[in-house]
C-alpha cells in the first residue's frame, strides 16, 4: 500500500512540476495575466477618477446677455461656483461653442415687466451634450430658484401674507447610509466582478494550452502512454492553471486596494474598508472559485474539436459569470439569503462585497459554500479523467 502511495506521490510531484513549468513559462498566458490584472483595474479606476474630476469641477462660465436690464439679478448670481460675465450682445449658440458653459439671456423689457408683476421670461441656453454645460445650467437654475423664493416671500410679506401659506410643509431628505454601505452599493458589484473576470481571463490561455493545445501538439498521447491515472493528470493541470488565475486575481486585488487608497473616495462619501484580514479572507474565498473556473475551462477545452474551437467556447464562457451576476443584481432576488450563498459564484460575490466594505461574513456559510464549490471541482475532475479516456481525444474516430 505504501509503495503505491510513494509511487503516486512521485508521479504527482513530477506532473505538478511539469504543468507548473509549462504554465508559468507560457509568455502569452503571463502577458494576458499581467496585462489584464494591472491595466484593467487601472483603466476602470482611471475612468472613474476622470468622471469624478469632471463631476467635481467647481466653476462654470455663465454669459449673461442683456444683464443691464436686470442688474440686481446679475448681481445675485455672482459668487459661488458661477463665473458671471456680462455681455452686451451675442448669439447664444455661438457663445456656447466658445468658452461659456451656459448663456442667460435677459430681455430688454425685464425690469418693466418685473415691476408690473408680469413674470418676465428669462432664457437659459445650454448644450446638454456638454457635461459641464448641463451641470452649469443646473447650478444657475438652483441659484435662480433660491432668488425667486426670496423675492416671492418678500412680495407676500408686503401684502401681509405669511410665506408659509404657499408651503404647507418642508421636506428635508436625510441620507442614513454610511460610507461603508455606499461603498458596498457602488463597489460591491464592480470589485467582485472584476476579480471573478480576472480569474476567467487569466486562466483561459493556459487552460486551452494545457488541454486543446496539448492535443493539437499530439503530446497528450505520450502523456496518456504513461502509467498515470486520469485524475492525476487533470488535478495537475487544474492546479497549475489555478495558480496563474489566482495570482492574477490577487494582483488585481492588490492594484485595486492601492488605487482605492490613492483615490479621493471619501469626497464622494464612499469608503473601501477592507483591512489586511479582509484582504486575506477575500484571497482565500477566491481560491475554490479559481479551481472551479480552471477545471471548467479545461473540461470545455478537452471537449472542443480544436484549439480554435476551444478559444471560441471559452470566450463565450468568460462573459457568463458577469452576465449572471449583473442579471441577478438587477433582479429582485434576495441574494443575501443563506441558500444563495451556497451557490458557487453568487456566494463568492456576496462575501467579497461584504468583506470589501469591512462587514463580517458568516464563517459557517462561507465554509459551506466553499465546500459546495470544491465538491463541484471534484466532480469536474472525475468527468475530466473520463474525458481523457475518450478515443476521439487521440484523433481516432
Amino acid at each position: 500500500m505504501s509503495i503505491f502511495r510513494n509511487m503516486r506521490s512521485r508521479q504527482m510531484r513530477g506532473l505538478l512540476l511539469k504543468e507548473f513549468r509549462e504554465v508559468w513559462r507560457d509568455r502569452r498566458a503571463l502577458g494576458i495575466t499581467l496585462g489584464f490584472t494591472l491595466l484593467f483595474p487601472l483603466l476602470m479606476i482611471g475612468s472613474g477618477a476622470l468622471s469624478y474630476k469632471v463631476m467635481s469641477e467647481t466653476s462654470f462660465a455663465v454669459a449673461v446677455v442683456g444683464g443691464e436690464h436686470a442688474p440686481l439679478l446679475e448681481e445675485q448670481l455672482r459668487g459661488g461656483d458661477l463665473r458671471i460675465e456680462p455681455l452686451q450682445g451675442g448669439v447664444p449658440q455661438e457663445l456656447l461653442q466658445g468658452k461659456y458653459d451656459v448663456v442667460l439671456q435677459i430681455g430688454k423689457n425685464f425690469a418693466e415687466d418685473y415691476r408690473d408683476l408680469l413674470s418676465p421670461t428669462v432664457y437659459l441656453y445650454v448644450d446638454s451634450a456638454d457635461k459641464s454645460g448641463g451641470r452649469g445650467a443646473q447650478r444657475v437654475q438652483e441659484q435662480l430658484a433660491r432668488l425667486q423664493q426670496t423675492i416671492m416671500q418678500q412680495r407676500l410679506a408686503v401684502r401681509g401674507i405669511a410665506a408659509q401659506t404657499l408651503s404647507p410643509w418642508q421636506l428635508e431628505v436625510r441620507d442614513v447610509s454610511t460610507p461603508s454601505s455606499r461603498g458596498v452599493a457602488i463597489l460591491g458589484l464592480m470589485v467582485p466582478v472584476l476579480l471573478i473576470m480576472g480569474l476567467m481571463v487569466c486562466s483561459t490561455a493556459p487552460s486551452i494550452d494545457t488541454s486543446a493545445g496539448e492535443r493539437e501538439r499530439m503530446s497528450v498521447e505520450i502523456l496518456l502512454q504513461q502509467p498515470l491515472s486520469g485524475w492525476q493528470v487533470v488535478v495537475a493541470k487544474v492546479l497549475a492553471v489555478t495558480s496563474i488565475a489566482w495570482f492574477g486575481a490577487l494582483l488585481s486585488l492588490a492594484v485595486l486596494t492601492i488605487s482605492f487608497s490613492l483615490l479621493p473616495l471619501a469626497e464622494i462619501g464612499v469608503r473601501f474598508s477592507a483591512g489586511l484580514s479582509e484582504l486575506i479572507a477575500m484571497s482565500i474565498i477566491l481560491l475554490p472559485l479559481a479551481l472551479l473556473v480552471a477545471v471548467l475551462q479545461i473540461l470545455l477545452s478537452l471537449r472542443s474539436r480544436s484549439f480554435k474551437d476551444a478559444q471560441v467556447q471559452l470566450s463565450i464562457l468568460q462573459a457568463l459569470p458577469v452576465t449572471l451576476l449583473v442579471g441577478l443584481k438587477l433582479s429582485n432576488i434576495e441574494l443575501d439569503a443563506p441558500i444563495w450563498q451556497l451557490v458557487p459564484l453568487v456566494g463568492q460575490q456576496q462575501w467579497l462585497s461584504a468583506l470589501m466594505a469591512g462587514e463580517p461574513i458568516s464563517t459557517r456559510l462561507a465554509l459551506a459554500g466553499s465546500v459546495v464549490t470544491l465538491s463541484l471541482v471534484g466532480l469536474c475532475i472525475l468527468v475530466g479523467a473520463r474525458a481523457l479516456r475518450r478515443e476521439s481525444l487521440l484523433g481516432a474516430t
Partner: protein
Amino acid sequence: MIRVDSVYKKFAAKPILRNLSFSAADGQVTALLGANGAGKTTCLRIIAGLLKADRGKVFVGGLEPSQHPKDVRRQLGIVGDREGLYERLTVAEYLSFFASAQGLAGTELEEALLAVKGELELSDLWNRRTKGFSQGERMKVSLARALVHRPAHLILDEPTRGLDVLAARLLRKTLLRLRSEGSTILFSSHIMAEVLELSDSVLVMADGAIVGSGTPDELMAQTGCGNLEDSFVRLAYGDLREGSRHEYF
C-alpha cells in the same frame, strides 16, 4: 513478449484491423512493415492500452493492457509518429518528468537520466528547451524518453525518421544493445536496409491484417523476390504495377 491475438477494430463502421494476429518475441527485433493507413498506429495504440479492441486480445509481458493498463505502460517504451515534446521544458526537465511518471525518484531517477544522457549523446542538448530542435534532435529526445525507465518492451514508429547518419547509427547501436539485453523491440520502418540490418523477423501488414511474416530471407523465399522491398510490395499490394505502388508511400 508482445502478443496480438485476433484483434478487430473499426472506426465509424470502417474496419481498421481485421483479426490481426502476431507476436514479437523477447530478445528480438521485430519489424512491422505496412503502407500508410495499413493500421500500424491503431495496432500500436491498442498495445499501449490507449484504444480498446472491439474483439480479440493483446498481451504485453503476459498482461492485457485493457485489464492492467498501468502495469503494461510501465513495461512499455513508445516512440510514436509524433515526438510529443514539451517545448517550454529543457531536455533534462522533460526526461525527468517522464522518469517520475514511471515511478522513478531520487538517485534511481538521477542514474536513469545520466544513463540515457550518455547512451544517446544528449549532453549538448541537456539544458536547452526543446523549442526549435531539429527533427533529428527531437527524435533523439523522444527516444530517450521511451528508454529512460528501461522498459522491457520497446515500440518504435519509424524511429530513424529525420535522423542524420550519425544519429541513425547511434540508434541502431542502442537497439542492438537493448536486444542483447533481452528487450522486446517492435518497430515500423519504410527503410528496407534498416529492416534488414536490425530485424530478426518481419511482419508485413496490409488492410489491417498480417499478410506475411518471417525472417527477411524467409519472406524473400516465400515471394520468390530477390530483395526485401519487392517481397514487401508483392505481399502488401499483390499484382499492382510499379507506377501505382509509389502512391502508397
